[in-house]
């Protein structure tokens, strides 16, 4: 029995994390009808923002940053990232907007430059590192370019090539984006874009932070309360408490504030909401910001409780939280929390009584089952038909 209660406690803590992430999926899906596959990566990046901030504060100012400042920075980092993703990758899918063709040009030009460099490398011709013009070479020596022999193109010329490619991609995207028809979300294009963003963030994370797990500082010291053989960790209580508080605040925002009402209206009927004077883009940005900061709360708490973070930490929790959102009825916020708790408790019980290697399979098993038996989820959904 005590074993069971112990697993239940573990499960509720884990489930609170899933619930917090799931709410972000549900909010965004409710409004855009888009599965933001990158949500797990926003969770990861938010956690890393907090991690880097703590490290930075300590190394530069000798300041031992506490839990709340770190949490706030994590939330801010995630929110900024979430809004940026929406602007750059998703918004062009749903409307002719002043898309950052410039942004696409710079990024795409960079990618094309690397492609060209790689191919020309085979012919023994190498680009000088254009970054070397701005940054001392010692910093950028991670690139293999300097080490290989063969003809070397001067860095200035390389820069010119990069600029040309960037301009080319810029012109192309500008033209293409101007012509594009408004796309329905839920189409393959939207899904693939989201998938691309998710992959990109994972791999950027690996490049920026390294693939090896990092130890997250114990911003809240572990302290166990023991009841017989049952251990109730203060961190578990913190996780559950933070989830409850976040949900109360979220409900207040959604039901009592203007932006919250705007979000609900947009989720029901975008055009009707616009006819009330609701700013669609701003409202969607807010939804991303809110969902992303909730993910960051989950991430920081997870990091404190389970101590290790790495760039791929968002993939599985992201997928499981999505299952939680579907379980609760996508678009339904309390449903997402309940779904998260069910997922967490089930997982803990599977780990405790069956096998820890089966924990992930169970999550997907639940997903497939629920989709087949009751696709609207346990608590019903307000899945938008349009968008």
């Amino acid at each position, binding site marked *: 029995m005590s074993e069971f209660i112990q697993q239940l406690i573990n499960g509720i803590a884990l489930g609170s994390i899933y619930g917090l992430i799931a709410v972000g999926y549900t909010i965004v899906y409710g409004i855009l009808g888009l599965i933001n596959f990158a949500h797990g990566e926003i969770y990861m990046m938010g956690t890393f923002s907090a991690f880097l901030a703590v490290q930075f504060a300590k190394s530069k100012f000798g300041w031992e940053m506490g839990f709340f400042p770190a949490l706030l920075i994590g939330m801010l980092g995630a929110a900024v990232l979430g809004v940026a993703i929406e602007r750059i990758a998703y918004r062009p*899918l749903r409307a002719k907007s002043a898309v950052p063709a410039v942004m*696409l040009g710079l990024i*795409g030009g960079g*990618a094309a430059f690397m492609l060209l460099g790689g191919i020309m490398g085979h012919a023994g011709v190498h680009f000088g590192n254009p970054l070397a013009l701005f940054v001392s070479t010692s910093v950028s020596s991670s690139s293999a370019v300097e080490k290989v022999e063969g003809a070397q193109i001067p860095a200035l010329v390389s820069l010119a090539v990069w600029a040309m490619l960037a301009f080319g991609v810029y012109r*192309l995207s500008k033209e293409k984006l101007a012509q594009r028809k408004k796309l329905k979300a839920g189409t393959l294009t939207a899904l693939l874009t989201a998938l691309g963003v998710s992959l990109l963030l994972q*791999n950027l994370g690996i*490049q920026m932070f390294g693939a090896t797990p990092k130890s997250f500082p114990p911003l809240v010291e572990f302290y166990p309360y023991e009841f017989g053989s049952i251990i109730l960790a203060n961190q578990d209580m913190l996780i559950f408490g933070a989830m409850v508080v976040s949900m109360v605040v979220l409900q207040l925002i959604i039901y009592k504030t203007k932006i919250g009402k705007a979000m609900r209206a947009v989720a029901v009927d975008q055009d009707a909401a616009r006819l009330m004077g609701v700013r669609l883009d701003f409202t969607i940005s807010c939804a991303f910001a809110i969902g992303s900061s909730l993910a960051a709360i989950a991430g920081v708490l997870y990091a404190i409780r389970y101590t290790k973070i790495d760039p791929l930490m968002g993939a599985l929790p992201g997928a499981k939280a999505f299952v939680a959102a579907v379980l609760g009825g996508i678009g339904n916020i309390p449903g997402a929390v309940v779904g998260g708790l069910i997922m967490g408790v089930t997982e803990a019980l599977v780990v405790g009584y069956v*096998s820890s290697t089966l924990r992930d399979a169970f999550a997907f098993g639940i997903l*497939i089952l629920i989709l087949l038996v009751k696709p609207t989820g346990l608590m019903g959904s307000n899945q938008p038909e349009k968008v």
Partner: protein
Amino acid sequence: MIEISSYHIQVLAFMGINIILAVSLNLINGFTGQFSLGHAGFMAIGAYTAAILTKACGWPFLLATLAGALLAFAFGLLLGIPILRLKGDYLAIATFGLSEIVRVAIVNFDDVTMKAATLVGLQDLVPKEITRGALGYPAIPEVKSLVWIYGWAFVTCLILRNIVRSSEGRAISSIGEDELAAESLGINTARYKTLSFAIGAFFAGVAGALFAHWVTYIKADLFKIDKSIEILLMVVLGGMGSLSGSVLGAVVLTLLPEYLRVFAQWRMVIYPILLILLMLTRPEGLLGRRELSTILGVLYTRAMGRGGPAPGNPPVAAE
């Protein structure tokens, strides 16, 4: 003579296997419009089944390949019936989940069968090691033959081309264009969706078997979501609903990483950027729904001048 090293042969082999994977996934994703993220799962089924049959049971390669493919086909059929009721995002996630379950099942196969066998008292009849769990499956009989691989690639393309051009193929394509409309025309969409899903799975199984016997050592982690996405990328790049596009996509995306060795560490950053750019600027892929032959045909007639259509007014390519 250009010297062909074993490295080049290896690249060619993977290219052939990727062609089979991409073309077969295109039947599901491109023509039928059903977003599957689980192709690697079927590949795993084919790879493990064939490998176990040749190594542990001494079956001949061709027979083992067919058995692996048939098992993948059976799974495709069985799972397709319920799963394909789902649409869009849900289907994508469910197929992703399925392939994860396949992976976990492979890892835990020995444990579970042993426990089950012990339960009914048959533990002596069941071999201790079947899939060998997370350790991976080593020392598979080697079949390093480009003839097998390209033979199968040719067969795959031929069969899929015939399917696509048949009246069933037109039914399948009409589902891909507008499922509701197809249904209202009296097309049994569930049947065609499941069929195309299973046929796609069959060839993924073939590809898995070929792969297993080329590399001779496989493990479940080789068939994760990354692999499914890689295949998907080939299909998307080439053009959804274009078989030659998928071949093109497979060729490009097999060669590209080899050319990108210098930037190996940035490769997985560049790929997603390209995918996003592609989606924002040319979501239909390089060839769209057209086949290379029709495009070349158009270019040819245009180049010949007279008789060709005016440049600004290209003829509608045959679907």
